[in-house]
């Protein structure tokens, strides 16, 4: 399992989740968990995904996601999950 955390932050608009999920499906990336909040029109989403079957390299996948984010004026981040697990779990 190549557990990876995707975060998407920015102004809320119609179709964010749809566009991100379509991109994930196209690259054979499985979603393990999603949590999302919208406060004062501000969208904040985190996804835990598995990149084991991903057809692209990590860098290429991450850059593709960034381009989709940028087209919706959103900031996306794609990070391997270990950084969060190490930092927040003893």
């Amino acid at each position, binding site marked *: 399992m190549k557990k990876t*955390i995707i*975060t998407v932050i920015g102004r809320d608009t119609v179709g964010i989740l749809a566009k991100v999920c379509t991109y994930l499906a196209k690259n054979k990336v499985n979603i393990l*968990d999603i*949590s999302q*909040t919208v406060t004062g029109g501000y969208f*904040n989403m*985190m996804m*835990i995904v598995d990149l084991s079957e991903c057809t692209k390299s*990590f*860098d290429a996948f*991450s850059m593709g996601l960034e381009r989709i984010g940028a087209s919706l004026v959103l900031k996306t*981040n*794609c*990070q*391997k*999950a*270990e*950084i*969060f*697990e*190490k*930092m*927040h779990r*003893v």
Partner: protein
Amino acid sequence: MINLSEVTETNKMIAEENLDVRTITMGISLLDTASSSLDATCKAIYDKLLKYAGNLVETGDAIGRDFGVPVINKRISITPIAMVGSSCCKKTSDFVKIAKTLDKAAKKIGVNFIGGYSAIVSKGMTRADELLIRSIPEAMASTERICSSVNVGSTKTGIDMDAVRLMGEIIKEAALKTKKADSIGCAKLVILCNAPDDNPFMAGAFHGVSEGDVVINVGVSGPGVVNHVLKSIRGADFETLCETIKRTSFKITRVGQLVAQEASARLGVPFGIIDLSLAPTPAIGDSVADILKEIGLEHPGAPGTTAALALLNDQVKKGGVMASSYVGGLSGAFIPVSEDQGMIDAVNAGALTIEKLEAMTCVCSVGLDMIAIPGDTPASSISGIIADEAAIGMINQKTTAVRIIPVAGKKVGDTVEFGGLLGRAPVMNVSKFSCEAMISRRGRIPAPIHSFKN
């Protein structure tokens, strides 16, 4: 399972509070490159550095992208060159040739610094040690990326006062040789006592002879993160203060441990240590001085500064030790003046003097770091400052160091711009009273007694 608030906390530390991994430093032994021919030695050094560190920069950057955390510096530390060149260097220019080879290798590999143009002379100098030391000004003036260090004392050996006297002169000479660039040669030269073999931080990094052939050491940072979290508990009691620093230090260090293990695996080089240091940069908000202010000082240098720094340093270690499997290097809070905007402000406000900084070095790792002093300061006074720091290290069984810049042509009140990570420094006052007669004595200070501690 990781939750949204934890992810947000980590990413806020990176994006807004300057959390980063300050350096991945590859330590490389050059002992096997030594030979009696200068050209053969230079070639062997170049080839070995390229062989092991050729992918260092690329790998460091890839790890940074994978975890979304900046890996600021990729660097190399090497066996002290005085040892490597002892057979083939007969004059100072021979050592300078090795320095130029190292500089060429550093540029080819893409690392911003290579540390280890060094001599370990805690008890005495060999002919090669002295030649290397005398070559430092020329080596600093004719290279860009070389860092030099000289260890002049230790708790076990005492202090080599002949080396201390010589270093006062060498610092002055290096300042003059790099006068056009505000004496920047001295910013890459550090004089140590009890220097660790596995320090990943420049300018004092070298790969000691107690180390293996190649090793990965990592220096973490994050004063901005500590400062930010302390703001949220303003006015709390000491227990809460200390617990908060410890917890934050744990989190910061875990990132360093992860990056170190990843770098070690990808480069096929054993993991050495994590250096638990709060290393500031000139960036706003990335300051150790700001933490001291948040603890409750108007400026660093106010009464209480030494206590606040002792507390901070100790809690950082307590939190960090738990987060890493191996801890080493300098491991303490750095208090460089030019690289920390809060320190610069404190000097400009008249709150911080060299004497108070010296007191602070009794409880933190590094010593008098990146301090600009008037260019006309006598060499003997610089030696006196080095001797004072070395004495603090020797007696207290800790690492101390002096990285001081007698800026040619500048006087108290002027400001010097070094640029980049080295920052800018106000020129500070040095006592006008002489120690010439003491420094001109020959020999060494004996090793201290380890009982009757008072």
